[in-house]
């Protein structure tokens, strides 16, 4: 005879600031998750997130070792300034330090959260910088706007997935029509709204929306084809 606990969810702690007063060492409720990229990644993320929640700086170093370079690369792509990119990277990890608990139930979403936060912080900084003064840390416009087409160039994606998938993705991206890739580049890395892109390119807003939408759906279709892994 197996007795099980009633099907009730544990009460939520609504005031994290007082958690140290109320938490009596109860085990954390972990929902099972099915990470998209790799179960091992999700498990490693979960371990790191638990450490971050507990204030373990070693966990912060672990996360940085896994994703710091990527975050920095994205920030640099956006900000085109190394100092700014490093500061933005610190902002991202500070945000993670404060909000790690939110990701405990979905550790597989750590990277998407980091990327979203990195883009958000980067775009915020970019918008605050109305005038850009060239500094030795600045990267050139060409370098910042470089579209990766040479498969020999290492990309942020290469450090995340195996080379086969990275090649598939990069090949699929390379096959995207130029206007679709440009629309995504302007929206993602330049922080332009789709309306602003439409104005800049003298295109209807619907066209710009469709281009971005087609780019994303086409990529998914190509990656889910027979050759995908």
């Amino acid at each position, binding site marked *: 005879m197996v007795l099980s606990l009633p099907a*009730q969810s544990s*009460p939520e702690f609504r005031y994290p600031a007082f958690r140290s007063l109320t938490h009596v060492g109860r085990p954390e409720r972990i929902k099972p998750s099915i990470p998209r990229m790799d179960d091992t990644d999700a498990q490693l993320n979960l371990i790191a997130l638990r450490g971050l929640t507990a204030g373990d700086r070693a966990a912060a170093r672990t996360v*940085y070792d896994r994703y710091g370079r990527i975050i920095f690369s994205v920030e640099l792509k956006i900000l085109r300034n190394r100092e700014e990119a490093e500061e933005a990277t610190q902002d991202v*990890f500070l945000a993670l330090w404060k909000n790690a608990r939110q990701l405990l139930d979905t550790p597989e979403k750590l990277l998407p959260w980091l990327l979203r936060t990195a883009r958000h912080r980067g775009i915020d900084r970019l918008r605050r910088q109305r005038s850009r003064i060239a500094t030795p840390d600045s990267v050139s416009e060409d370098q910042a706007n470089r579209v990766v087409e040479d498969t020999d160039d290492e*990309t*942020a994606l290469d450090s995340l997935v195996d080379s086969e998938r990275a090649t598939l993705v990069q090949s699929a991206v390379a096959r995207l029509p130029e206007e679709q890739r440009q629309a995504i580049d302007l929206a993602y*890395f330049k922080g332009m709204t789709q309306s602003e892109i439409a104005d800049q390119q003298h295109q209807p807003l619907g066209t710009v929306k469709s281009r971005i939408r087609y780019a*994303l759906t086409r990529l998914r279709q190509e990656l889910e084809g027979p050759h995908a892994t």
Partner: protein
Amino acid sequence: MQRDALEELAIAYLLDELAESERRAFEKRIAAEPETAQLVAELEESLGEIALAATPLEEPSAGLRERVVASLPSPSESSAATRSRSSVVFGPWIAIVGWAAAACFTVAWINERRDLQHWRQAAQTQSELIEERSSRIEQLTEEQTELERSLAALEADNALKDSQLATLSQIEDRLDQVAQNLQAVGAERDALKTTVATLREERALDKVRIATLSSELNQQNFGYVVWDTQADEGVARVYNMPEIDPDTQSYQLWVITEESPAPISAGLFTVDPSGQGESRFRPEGPVEAVKAFAISREKKGGSTAPEGPIIISGQPTI
């Protein structure tokens, strides 16, 4: 909402183009609709992969790692910083913050109580479950005991039936015996009937007297008479009687009684040429006690009193 429109809305969400209210509304929808959540996740992944595929991998400065770690506040530092900022920046609002903190603490305490209550309820529910299971076990045990009793009763009943069957078999055997006995009794009854009939016949002979008639002159002339004393009638049979002239002579039977000195005629008697004859007769007068019987040769038609010679005669035996 059609798929295309939903995808455009999701993309706007991922690119942070939605207004605050729109963003919150869409996040609620993501939480409520698994399909929408799945769509957003897929688009986000695709968007991320495109972005990362277009991002050259750059190496930050060597010290960034430690600067990142060093910039992370400790939990105590976070609290102290909060208090410090509160005292320096929010001087006039300390009282309000204090009251708010107290309220939060109270709410947290209430939540804690609620947590404890929750665990108590869970424990209570467990106890109830255990008690219910125990009660069920007892009930099943009682049912099992009852079933065992029923089984024992059935087995006893079967044994009784077996015994009854054996008894029935014995009874059948006895019935067979009885039938045989009855048959024997029947046979005895029949024998008894025969005996009774015989006895009855024997009793009937009580009223029958038999007289043997013989001749002193010729032993070949004989006869007998069977006389019913109650009916006063009898039967006479003769053998080897001398031949007589039927034109002029007749044999006549006479009954001699104790009470009457004169023989009483019992009628004429006819014999065949071999001298044999039989006659059923009734005396022509009352007979009390028969003393003897006689047959004489008389003139043709008989006489009122014996005149001719007595051919045969005899006395009835007792």
